[in-house]
Each structure stands twice: as C-alpha cells, then as structure tokens.
C-alpha cells in the first residue's frame, strides 16, 4: 500500500513538472500586446531579476554576452543571448488617385483611376493586405454621394457593369498576391488562376476587405495594383462637383 502510494505520488510529481515546464516554454514563446504596449518576446533567465528597495531599483541579468543589431539591404542580424524576435513589415505610401475623364452630370460616362502599393515583410507567415473606406458610401461630396459598386452575386463581377440608371464606384485589385476572390477564369471571379487588370469588380466598404495575402518577401516586396472606376449610365443625374473617397490600405503580418 505504501509502495503504491509512493509510486502514485512520483507519477503525479513528474507529470506536474513536465506540465509546468511546457506551460512556461509556451508562454515565453508568445508575444502579447495591449492598446498601450507590445512585447515582441520575453525570456526566462537562469539568474537575475528585479531588486528594489526604497532607494534604488536594480534590474540585473545574467547570461547575455553581447547584443546588437546588424542590418543590410538583404539581411537582418539580431545578435545576443535572445535578441527581440522583431517582425518587419512596411507599406508604401499610396499616391492619391485622380480619376479621368470627368463625368458629365447629365450624360454620364466612365472614369478610371489606378494606383499601386508595395508591401515588404519578413514575417515567416507572410502578410495580409486589406482595404477599407472611411465613409459609407465611399465616394462623397458633402451630403452628395455616389453608391458603392454592388456585384451581381456573392463574388466580384468579372466586368464592371453600368446600367442606364446606375451611378456607382468600385475597385478591382490585381497582383501576384491577390486572394482567390479576385482571381478569374476569364469569365467569372473567385475561380481560376488569372489575376487580370480591370477584372473582378467590387465596391469599397468601411469594413476591411481582404485583397492580398502573401509570404515573406523582403527585400523586394509585393506589389498590388488597385483599379478604381466610376460609372454613370446617364439615366440618373449627378450633382456636379468634386467627389472624394478616403481609403485605407492596411498591411498585417501574420
């Protein structure tokens, strides 16, 4: 009986020991953040710690030998006992888009504009690129608005369709990293493997719409081109003036 109890206690101790070690290791491998801070990584040292008194405060460590960051255009070296596991991501400044030609308020027409964005990241898991508009609908002039483009079905429209009474504004992404929703088989979107200019049209939204997802691409980065189009069928008059859509592209490392 005493032997069985000992064996049971031993097993329990071993299990808890492994569980604690595993839990600590997992915890230390993760990053945390709040609205005020972000920890790239934390560590558990074999020695050191925070010592305080009413007169001083000492943060002591043991084990680190030498640290530093060395970078070039093609690599980044984070040397030391445990250098911060930084994920690098950048997004290029996007030029404002001025669509052309002007559209007749009574006769209607089609105006087009294009811009592109480059996302560079070394995130091992890659990145995501989303687009959102500040307003609903996106294109506005004071209280005058132009509707966001609405595809016929759940998927983007392969072509930008403007009927007589339509006045609307949409976009079409193009690039190597665009997600499957924006790929086409020449006759429909969200099917096929083609990323084609001026194909697969959707409207902007105040909520993020995923347009591209790719892998680590430092240093060259990945370019995504955005085509914008406003169509007016001429059946619905438009109040003359300059309309704007303030848009945000967000690149998120994974």
């Amino acid at each position: 009986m005493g032997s069985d109890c000992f064996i049971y206690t031993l097993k329990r101790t071993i299990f808890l020991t492994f569980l604690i070690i595993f839990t600590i290791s997992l915890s230390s491998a993760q990053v945390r953040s709040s609205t005020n801070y972000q920890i790239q990584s934390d560590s558990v040292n074999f020695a050191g710690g925070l010592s305080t008194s009413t007169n001083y405060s000492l943060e002591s460590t043991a084990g680190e030998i030498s640290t530093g960051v060395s970078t070039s255009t093609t690599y980044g070296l984070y040397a030391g006992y445990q250098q911060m596991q930084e994920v690098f991501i950048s997004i290029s400044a996007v030029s404002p888009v001025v669509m052309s030609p002007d559209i007749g308020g009574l006769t209607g027409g089609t105006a087009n504009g294009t811009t592109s964005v480059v996302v560079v990241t070394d995130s091992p898991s890659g990145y995501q690129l989303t687009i959102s508009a500040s307003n609903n609908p996106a294109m506005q002039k004071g209280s005058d608005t132009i509707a966001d483009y609405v595809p016929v079905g759940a998927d983007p429209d392969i072509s930008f369709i403007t009927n007589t009474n339509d006045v609307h504004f949409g976009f079409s992404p193009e690039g190597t990293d665009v997600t499957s929703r924006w790929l086409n088989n020449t006759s429909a979107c969200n099917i096929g493997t083609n990323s084609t200019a001026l194909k697969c049209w959707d409207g902007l939204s105040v909520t993020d719409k995923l347009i591209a997802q790719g892998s680590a691409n430092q240093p060259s980065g990945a370019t995504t081109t955005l085509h914008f189009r406003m169509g007016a069928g001429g059946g619905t008059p438009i109040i003359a003036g300059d309309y704007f859509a303030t848009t945000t592209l967000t690149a998120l490392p994974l």
Partner: protein
Amino acid sequence: MIKGIFFLFLISFFLPMSTFAVDSDFTIKTVVGDDSVPPTTPTLFSAVPVADSQIDLAWSASTDNFSFGGYVVLRDSVAIATTTLTSFNDVDLTPETLYSYEVYAFDSNLNISTTSNSLATTTLPVPPEPVTPISTESLDNNKASTQTVRLKSLDVKITTDEAVFDWETYGVAKYTLRWGLTSEYNDGYINSNIYSSSHKTSINELIPNSLYFYEIIGHTPSGATVVLKQDQFTTAIEMNDFPPPNVLRFRAEVEKNDVLLSWQLPNLTDIKVVRIVSNPYSYPTDIYDGEVVYEGLGVSVMDRGSLLSDDTMYYTAFVLSEKGEVSSGAVLFVKKDYNLPVEESSNQINDQGTAAAPFGGEEKKEISLYNFDANNINILQEKYNFTFLSDSINLSYRKSFTISIPYESLPRHLKSIIVTLLDPTDNRRSYSFLLKINKQGTAYEATIAPLNVLGTSRLEVEIFDFESQLIGLYKKQIIFSAIDDVKVEQQAVVFPDKILYTTKDILIVVAIVGSIILLLLLTIRFMRKGS
C-alpha cells in the same frame, strides 16, 4: 492546484498571437462636370451655289466640354438638316432663288449653342438645254474640253459580294451608277442628287465569282450628261467552298473487252471513297449518272466486259469527302480495240484517256461564246488569282488549284465544260476533268490535286453547248514551279516514275562486264604460264 496549473496552461496555449499592422491612407477623386454647358458656336464659312438646285455650305467645327452631338442647318430660319460633318449640300432648291443659311451646334445632352452668322446666296439659273450623253471615248481623247466634268480618278474595290466605288472628277457632277450581269446594266442603279467632285458608293449583295458590267454617268450642273466610265469587274470567289480535288493521272488500258483503269489518290485528309462511274453515251456528270464500276480507296480496277456490247465507254472518277462533298470528276473514254487516241489534236497531248469531243464530234473552234472570253476562266491557288488573259500563270507545284468559270458568264441551258491538263513532264500525256457547278450555283469549278512535278504545262478549256452546238476552246500555258516554297523539303517526283532500260542499254552493260571478266581470265592464265 493541478486544476489551476492546467487552466493556466490552457489559457496560455490559446492566447492569440497579436501583431502590429501598418496603414497607408489615400484619396480617390472624381470630377462630375456640369454638362449643361452648350458647345461653342460654329462659324458659317461659305454658302456656294453649284447648280440651279444646289448650294454647298461649310462651317467651322464646334467643341463641347463633354460629349459633342452635331449641327443643325437652318435655311431661312427653318431647320432642314442635322449632321455631324462641317459641310452640307442643300439640294432640290429652286433656280435663281435667294436662300439664307445659319448653323448651330448641340451636344449629346441637347445643350445647343448660339446660332452662327448668316450667309445668303442665290441658286444658279436653269441651264439652257439638256445635253445627250457623251461617250467615254471622247473624253479619253481629250475631246471633252467643252465638258464640265471629267473623271479624275477611280478606285473600285471588289470582294465576294460587294464593290466599293470611290472616284473624283474634274468639275462637280451628280452621278448615276448602273450595273448588271450583262452590258445592259439592268441589275440595279444608284442616283445621287448632290453635285460634287468626290463620290463614294457601294454595290452590295453581288454574286460571288461573277462578272459584272457597270457604267458611271456624270450629270453636270449645266445639264450635260457624260459617260464617265464603262467597265466590268468580277467578284471574288469564296475560297472555302471549293470542291474536293479530283484523282490524278486517271488512265485506261484496253485489253480486248476489258478496260484497266488506274489513278492516283489526291492528298486529301478527309477523302472517303473514290467512285468510278461508266456510261456508254457521254461522260457521267455525277455519281449516279451511269454504272458504278468501282468504289473504294484503291488506285486501279479492271472493268471486265466493258466493251462487250458497246464500242465506246466514258468514265468519270469522283472523289467523295467525309463531308459528303463530291469532286467535279476526272474523265476519260476508251474505244474497243483501240488503245490509241481517238483523235490527234494539234498540241500532241493525246494519249489513252485524253478527253475528246464526246457530245457529237463537232469540229473544234476557237470562238467567243456570247459574252464569254478568256478573262472568265479563273485559275485560283490560295492567294493567287489568274485568268486566261493573265500574262503568265505561275502556280506552286505542291498545291492544289481550282479552275473556275462564273456561272453567269455562260448561257444557262445545258452545257459541259472539260479542262485538260498536259503532264508537265510529258506533254504526250494529258488528264481531263469536268467542271461542275458549285454549291452556291455561282461558278463551274474543278479542283486539281497537287501535281508534285515541276515544269511547263498547258491547260485547255473546252465548252460544249448542246443547244447551239458550239464549242469554245481556250488554251493557256501554265508553269508549275516552287513559288511560295521557303524550303523544298523533298525532291519533286520526276516523271516517269520508273526508269525503263532499252535492250540496247542492257547489251552494252553485258558487253562491258564480259570484257572485264575475259581480261581477268587472260591475266590469270598469263601469270600461271610465267610461273
């Protein structure tokens, strides 16, 4: 405690990995314009009377900030026309009458400009007397100096079913364009009511591969009527509608009452079968016109007993394609106990199987049938289009070609047309083919498979007319060469296919070999004696 640790473990394990993102904001601008703005006002440049019934107007172009629409022409403040051009010919006016003109512009949103300046002018007086038509010849001979219109240039573009005329004249004139399948020009006409020195019009719905006659007459403001041009054109052939090529080298040998027929298959991928039909009276003109003596994909057949009851037998070999199309037919005829040509023609082309007069033995004449002439005999090979009046006919030896004669160029009653091609490498041999009306009923055609031999040949076209008993005979030299061949991949087959040795040749070879053997034997014998 264990529960607490396990809870911590789970919490830490499922804590999401939070990351940071980067943004880029930008604006998209589009301008919606005020298209209630009218176009700019045109300026009326000129108002010129060119006849007793016509005044020509011209004005400057207007512009619009969005979408220009056109112009409205006002005569005496009444809108008479709308146009997108910057000129207008006002016709059907009264002679010697003052007219005032203005123009305004409009955009696609129907905003209208202010009205242009006004110009007024008077139409010309009525010309004294109408003038009877003056022939083109007098104009060509520069005897038309007193005329007010003369043809400056003329361009006629012909397709399979359309002719586009574009011409200019010295002096302004209205025109009448007449055309037809005969020189009566009775198929249609176009009258213009505008005096101008530049005209363009088209005739449509023409029959492909047909000869048309046309006449352009100019009517001057002074009342003169001048024949500007009388000519003809042939509409193009629809190239994809040619019949399948015929068999090649269709020949016959008579053995008592039997006839051995042989031929070569054309290089046709969708050839279905060769059908040979015989008829004791005339060449079978279709696959049902006689007795079928062979059907298959072979290259010879013995027609046994063919001449048992008939002294003469006519044969036609048809190629049937998988699409159901039938070639025009390769023809020959034979006579009992007669293995030589029925008649010797001046070109020495006859050999067994040569086509001759099977419809009554009329004497051949080189005559003109009705309006038919050698220009109606077309030789077509892909991009090349020759007629019997072409200076020379140079065809690729490796491609099929088609002989085509417009249906309308010959009388519509029963007729037969046979073309005979001399073998380019042996002019003693020739091969004959029927011409058959094509599917569209627009032409008599026969397609001949590639000969695959280089050389000069001659094509003869014989036209048999049952009603008038006339025969037209036309001959033209044809050269088969390597035109269009970037690289000749294989040597052309040279006729004859077999090299034949004469007895004399064999004796010479035997004599030479025997001499060498004898010399060797004498040498050996001499050496043995020496040793």
